[in-house]
């Protein structure tokens, strides 16, 4: 997790819901509106959700997350075995073909796994350093050896970025492949990419589950303005759209022609505190800040009641989330007293805000007033989102709000990022606690789920006590609906939509009303 670009992607691409005009026919072309266009078709070169949605359409992975979003299921690997020491994984490949008709072999799978680890262009190398060797022992068998046992390894294989690519097609020219992949292992092939405008996909007849794909094609169309995109769906110019602004949900739900799909997201908006700046180094000061913040009112104002107050850095609904975690009460008077006791009664904070981000700006205005009641002066510093991330890395801030969505099922990824004391300085907070650091490392190696859960509960409690605030502020999104990696038309007329665990999209597509 050292690469800043993958993290920027999380900060820059806002979450929301999905909106769709209900319509009867499932075949044909599905048009989907979204904020931004794709940036590449080479999965290792991107960590942005907008790209991963399309990767999920075009490429398949060895192991998938199931529809419920809680378990793993076979993808291109039909089955697998793990050696008792947890170091050797043996995958049996399914009989499947690329869109160009050539067979998908263990050789391709090994190539793809080693490429994401070794390529200079890869944004994900660090996450796959755990792979020691990956060898095709025969065309149908992939043997992977790890440098050490790793509980999250299988979850990591479900990431669209480590999709199985055709070795032949990639080696024919990486640059060209990133522009227009000539062979795809997934449900669709890329027909055309009009940069900045749309991605046009058409059905891959050679896909191993082609009989379950009812659509002839998908068009991902970028419509940056929220209001325009919503109008396009209402007017029928788009079949569906992602990112429904929170402020519009209630109103759009009233439109009888529209269905709004909501789901629990793994997005959490965190208030980051720079532990190296003055009084913020004191634990009591950080706890006082937590008590000075009325999180309920932030959730109500910013998400229009759609979100919930989060109490742990592991989002609700995710593996090992500790629901009974302590939540500091809202008590500005006590916060003020605590600040005075800690010698920080006239605390002044510089708050770095992502300019132009509606949610961030609203949270900033609310926090400024709430902290003001506890005697804390907050100076808002609006900066461009591309700049704010670097300011955080440089420690050039007192507080700031950033959000995170999980990429994999396993909590290890986020835990390492926020508490693992890795190169990101614990989400740039400069938080230090060796006990937590050791627990995070141990939890990664622990293969017994019960023991592992107990470790994660400990981590969540410790983190809450130490720094209640660089842990989450709120978790937006809705009632729970099935979520998962993909869903291939579970009902006769339900079109295909990409699914990936943890991304904000989630939410099933409209079942026709007729």
């Amino acid at each position, binding site marked *: 997790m050292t690469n800043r670009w993958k993290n920027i992607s999380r900060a820059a691409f806002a979450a929301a819901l999905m909106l769709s005009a209900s319509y009867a026919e499932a075949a044909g072309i599905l048009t989907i509106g979204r904020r931004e266009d794709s940036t590449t078709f080479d999965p290792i070169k991107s960590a942005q959700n907008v790209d991963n949605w399309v990767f999920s359409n075009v490429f398949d992975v060895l192991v998938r997350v199931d529809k419920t979003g809680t378990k793993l299921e076979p993808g291109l690997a039909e089955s697998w075995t793990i050696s008792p020491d947890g170091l050797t994984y043996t995958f049996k490949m399914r009989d499947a073909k690329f869109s160009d008709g050539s067979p998908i072999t263990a050789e391709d799978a090994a190539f793809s796994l080693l490429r994401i680890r070794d390529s200079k262009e890869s944004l994900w190398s660090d996450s796959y350093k755990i792979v020691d060797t990956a060898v095709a022992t025969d065309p149908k068998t992939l043997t992977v050896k790890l440098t050490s046992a790793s509980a999250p390894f299988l979850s990591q294989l479900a990431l669209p970025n480590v999709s199985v690519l055709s070795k032949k097609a990639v080696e024919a020219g990486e640059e060209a492949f990133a522009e227009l992949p000539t062979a795809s292992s997934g449900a669709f092939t890329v027909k055309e990419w009009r940069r900045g405008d749309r991605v046009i996909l058409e059905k891959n007849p050679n896909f191993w589950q082609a009989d379950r794909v009812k659509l002839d094609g998908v068009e991902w169309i970028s419509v940056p303005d929220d209001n325009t995109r919503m109008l396009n769906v209402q007017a029928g110019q788009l079949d569906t759209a992602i990112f429904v602004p929170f402020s519009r949900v209630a109103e759009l739900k009233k439109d009888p022609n529209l269905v709004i799909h909501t789901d629990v997201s793994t997005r959490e908006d965190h208030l980051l505190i720079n532990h190296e700046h003055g009084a913020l180094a004191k634990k009591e000061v950080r706890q006082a800040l937590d008590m000075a913040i009325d999180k309920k009112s932030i959730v109500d*104002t910013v998400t229009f009641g759609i979100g919930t107050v989060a109490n742990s850095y592991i989002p609700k609904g995710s593996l090992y989330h500790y629901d009974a975690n302590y939540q500091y009460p809202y008590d500005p008077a006590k916060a003020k007293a605590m600040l005075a006791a800690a010698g920080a009664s006239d605390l002044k904070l510089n708050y770095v805000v992502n300019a*132009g981000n509606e949610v961030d700006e*609203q949270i900033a205005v609310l926090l400024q007033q709430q902290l003001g009641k506890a005697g804390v002066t907050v100076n*808002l510093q*609006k900066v461009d989102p591309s700049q704010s991330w670097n300011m955080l890395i440089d420690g050039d801030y007192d507080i700031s709000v950033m959000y995170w969505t999980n990429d994999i099922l396993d909590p290890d990824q986020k835990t390492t990022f926020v508490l693992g004391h890795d190169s990101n300085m614990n989400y740039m907070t400069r938080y230090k606690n060796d006990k937590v650091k050791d627990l995070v490392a141990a939890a990664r190696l622990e293969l017994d789920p019960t023991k592992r859960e107990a470790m994660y509960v400990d981590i969540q409690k410790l983190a809450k006590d130490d720094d209640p605030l660089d842990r989450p502020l709120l978790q937006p999104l809705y009632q729970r609906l099935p979520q998962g990696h993909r869903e291939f038309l579970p009902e006769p007329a339900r079109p295909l939509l990409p699914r990936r665990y943890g991304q904000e999209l989630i939410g099933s597509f409209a079942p026709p009303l007729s």
Partner: protein
Amino acid sequence: MSAGSITLSPVGWRMFFGRNPMLAIGAGILLAFVLLAIAAPLVAPYDPILQNGEIRLQPPSLLHPFGTDNFGRDILSRVIWGTRIDLQIALIGVAFPFVIGTVVGTIAGFFGGIVDALFMRLVDIILAFPFLVLMLSIIAILGPGLSSFYIAMALVGWVSYARLIRAQILVLKNSDYAVAAVSLGFGRLRIMFRHLLPNAIAGSIVFAMSDAVLVLLSGAAVSYLGLGVQPPVAEWGVMVAEGQSFITTAWWITLFPGLSIVCLAFGFSMLGDALGELLGVHE
């Protein structure tokens, strides 16, 4: 009334107000806004930055004639307090360029030659950039905030005044009274600023009025982009920006500050036109 000279007699005021309804309307609107700005603490029914979660996004009602925004703040109070900021933007945003432009234009026009060439090439360079782009780049370097906006405005806005004044000075410096002043041995400064400038400045004053409209809109635009006035201060442009995402559900958040911008701009515009007619300046 000769072109370019100010010849107002005290008795004339009532006459031309009567004959010139535009002047009365423009001045009236401006005066109303100035009074509103001065009396803001007395007139505004609520604290403009006080948030109240209980009354978010309320449509206009008797309690809140302009409704409330997504933080439960009273829009009417925010519009009234915003008057202070927006008038300040219009005044300071015009004053600095006006003064700088006038001095530069006078010097360039009077001395001519290399001085003139240097200043006018500088003007050409600044004019070569699109106005807003140049403004935004300067603000981006200085950091967001109103003071950066004023500095950017002063650096960019003076060129129009400089050109106007210079053109007038070029004509006037060959007039009889200027030649007479030179032969009487008056100093250059005296000739420039006491003899020539008063006769050259009318066009700039009229232009300043229409420039105020432009400045006001630029201020609103810059704030809209998040580079001007910073939250939670109430400013019309910021209010329009904040209300944008609610435009289909809560139109009142954007409508009232938007109308205020239009009204104030209208006032300046009217006054400018009327003054132009009165002073015999034809743009």
